[in-house]
């Protein structure tokens, strides 16, 4: 087989089962205490610092990282369980999610030791929030068109330019960003960008929130004006960020957040339809559940590959491609299936509010973190077509 894809069936080990119980119990407590409402899916808009600290205290941040940095040396599959339970509960993960998923692993790989020792334990304690500075006003999918300059100066760099679509920048303590340290070369247009650790809330950084059509303020514009970054905040190779970007994609693109973003409307549909569905509702629910089950098994399978030390970039891209299209269509399918739900159904109002939010959220799901078009290009390359 020239184009062999592998999605081996991973059985979650028994330690995951115990962990899942603990996470569920914790979330139930927090819901009971009023920390968050599981029926309100606007987790991305909610900043609950004390929740982050509690999650950290439970040992559920930096789970796979070395203990010397505050991590817990547990498996990717255990992290998977924690992530999916939080996601399905609509827990307010905004403050720690990016750091735990992406920024921590980048620092682990590229940051100097003293920075790792300083920052990673704080991520693990749920104390700090990260943002990612990739897109710019004229470079969206095409990351390597970034123009924001990092100009060498005494002991560091001066940053000038604008990042955009930066989730959580307005609450973030740090950002990991790519800046232009050299022009691209003729041979390699991806040359010349360097990855930096940026300390936010410092002079020369202005964060302008951007309102989304959901009414939320998740995105930001981040304007740098002669912002100084010290030399030891360079992450990895000067001018060589392009070598560092691709291997991280498997982490970013295959998680449960790539198909569960609108899952809550399925739960509420089941509630609204009741115990004795007609053929139309039963078939609709059955097909949707078959999809979410399949997506999850694919996603778990990729987590298993990560645990085995592989870099399943194509498989992760497939998960995000079909997962985000599924979660984008889900609210529309649920709306149709709910068309004949009686007004008396107890959760009808909850479902309608959720549908409203999910339908507004839907367009971004196939854009953020790698568009459908970019993903299919990666898959095509993996198939040997490019």
């Amino acid at each position, binding site marked *: 087989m020239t184009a062999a894809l592998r*999605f081996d069936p991973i059985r979650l080990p028994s330690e995951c089962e115990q962990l899942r119980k603990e996470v569920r119990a914790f979330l139930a407590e927090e819901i009971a205490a009023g920390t968050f409402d599981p029926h309100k899916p606007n987790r991305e808009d909610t900043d609950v610092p004390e929740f982050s600290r509690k999650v950290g205290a439970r040992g559920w941040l930096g789970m796979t990282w070395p203990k010397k940095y505050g991590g817990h040396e547990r498996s990717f599959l255990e992290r998977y369980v924690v992530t999916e339970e939080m996601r399905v509960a609509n827990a307010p993960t905004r403050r720690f999610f990016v750091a735990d998923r992406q920024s921590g692993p980048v620092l682990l790989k590229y940051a100097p030791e003293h920075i790792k020792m300083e920052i990673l334990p704080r991520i693990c304690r749920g104390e700090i929030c990260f943002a990612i500075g990739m897109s710019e006003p004229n470079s969206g999918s095409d990351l390597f068109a970034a123009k924001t300059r990092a100009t060498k100066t005494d002991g560091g760099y001066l940053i000038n330019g604008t990042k955009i679509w930066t989730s959580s920048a307005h609450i973030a303590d740090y950002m990991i960003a790519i800046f232009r340290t050299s022009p691209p070369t003729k041979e390699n247009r991806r040359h010349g960008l360097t990855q930096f650790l940026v300390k936010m809330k410092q002079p020369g950084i202005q964060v302008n929130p951007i309102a989304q059509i959901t009414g939320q303020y998740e995105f930001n514009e981040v304007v740098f004006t002669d912002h100084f970054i010290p030399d030891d905040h360079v992450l990895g190779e000067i001018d060589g960020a392009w070598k560092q970007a691709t291997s991280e994609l498997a982490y970013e693109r295959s998680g449960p957040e790539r198909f569960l973003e609108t899952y809550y409307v399925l739960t509420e549909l089941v509630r609204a339809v009741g115990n004795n569905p007609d053929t139309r509702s*039963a078939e*609709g629910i059955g097909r949707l*559940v*078959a999809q979410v089950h399949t997506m999850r098994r694919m996603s778990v399978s990729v987590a298993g590959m990560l645990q085995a030390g592989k870099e399943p970039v194509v498989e992760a891209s497939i998960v995000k491609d079909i997962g985000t299209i599924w979660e984008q269509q889900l609210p529309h399918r649920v709306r149709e299936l709910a068309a004949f739900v009686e007004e008396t159904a107890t959760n009808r109002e909850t479902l309608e509010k959720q549908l409203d939010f999910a339908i507004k959220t839907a367009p971004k799901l196939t854009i953020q973190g790698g568009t459908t078009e970019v993903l299919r290009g990666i898959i095509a390359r993996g198939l040997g077509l490019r």
Partner: protein
Amino acid sequence: MAESENIVAETAEKIFADLADAQTINRDKKGEWKAPLWQALTDAGLPLSWVPEDCGGSGASLAEGFSVLSAAGRFAVAVPLAETMLAGWLLAQAKITSPGGEMTVVPASPKDRITVNADGSLSGRARGVPFAKVAKHFAVLASDAKGDFSVALVDAGKCRIETGLNLGGDPSDVVTLDKVQPVTIKPAPTGFDQARLMLMGGVARSLQIAGALESMLEISVRYSNERVAFEKKISKFQAVQHNLARLAGESAAALAAATSAADAIANATSFNDEVFLEAVAAKIRCSEAAEKGGGIAHQVHGAIGFTIEHILHRYSLRALAWRDDFGSESFWAVELGKLVAQRGADELWPLVASR
């Protein structure tokens, strides 16, 4: 995949590669490839993979047998290998020794029922029975007036068979039993019912569909890298690249769903809701993938893929045909939807996240 699965799967792959090459078969209008292929499969003990040695089989594990079916799907094999395996498995449930030769299972649809009459004979009608015309024996699951299930070995010659062909051109027949005395009949194990048989068949078909999609992806990628249009390989057109990426997605989803279900059944201690979800979801998702994925494979191939001479139809039409066996995806979606509704909204996620 465990080492033993690899060995069994490789044995099957080798036999298929030697004796069931799609191009060779496609050119052989007389079907002369069938007898040597079946002989080789039989010599390797594959048709009775799931039959314990004390019941006349080769005593392979469920997982090993499933890996054979994946390989059979990748070659879109048109002999009753899956059917004989399923029949042997069904007979073994009741400790009935499998005879040699081709077999199939009756019924093959969740809507059909075979009844055990008071005199021990069997009556009923089963539609869409794959390869009934070819089979020497049927493994029959039947229920008596009390609803208790029995497994029976039946001589195919004693049944009335109305022949038909499925979309892929393989036999799909109506089998009528009119007070047929079985060769052997024994009670099914406690809790074994028709849904169990249907879902085992459904997982077999899911693996075959996933295998066929793997091959469709492979030959489509290869074709796109050979075929030139508008002065370049069609694989260089973004529209073709994205279509093939979608086919890869469908193929991957089918593969993941089918192998996960097979793994769940192979490792199940009981046939609970979680195993039901795995089996049913595989049949639904693989059937959906057969339509979407097969459609893309044809679109990439253009007119050539629509001809009998080209091998594509061997995979695409069989994958579509396999949707209908052992309960269509619509049937199982309704059953799954009912189960989910009965468990209630708050028990959906625990079901999905069970393993």
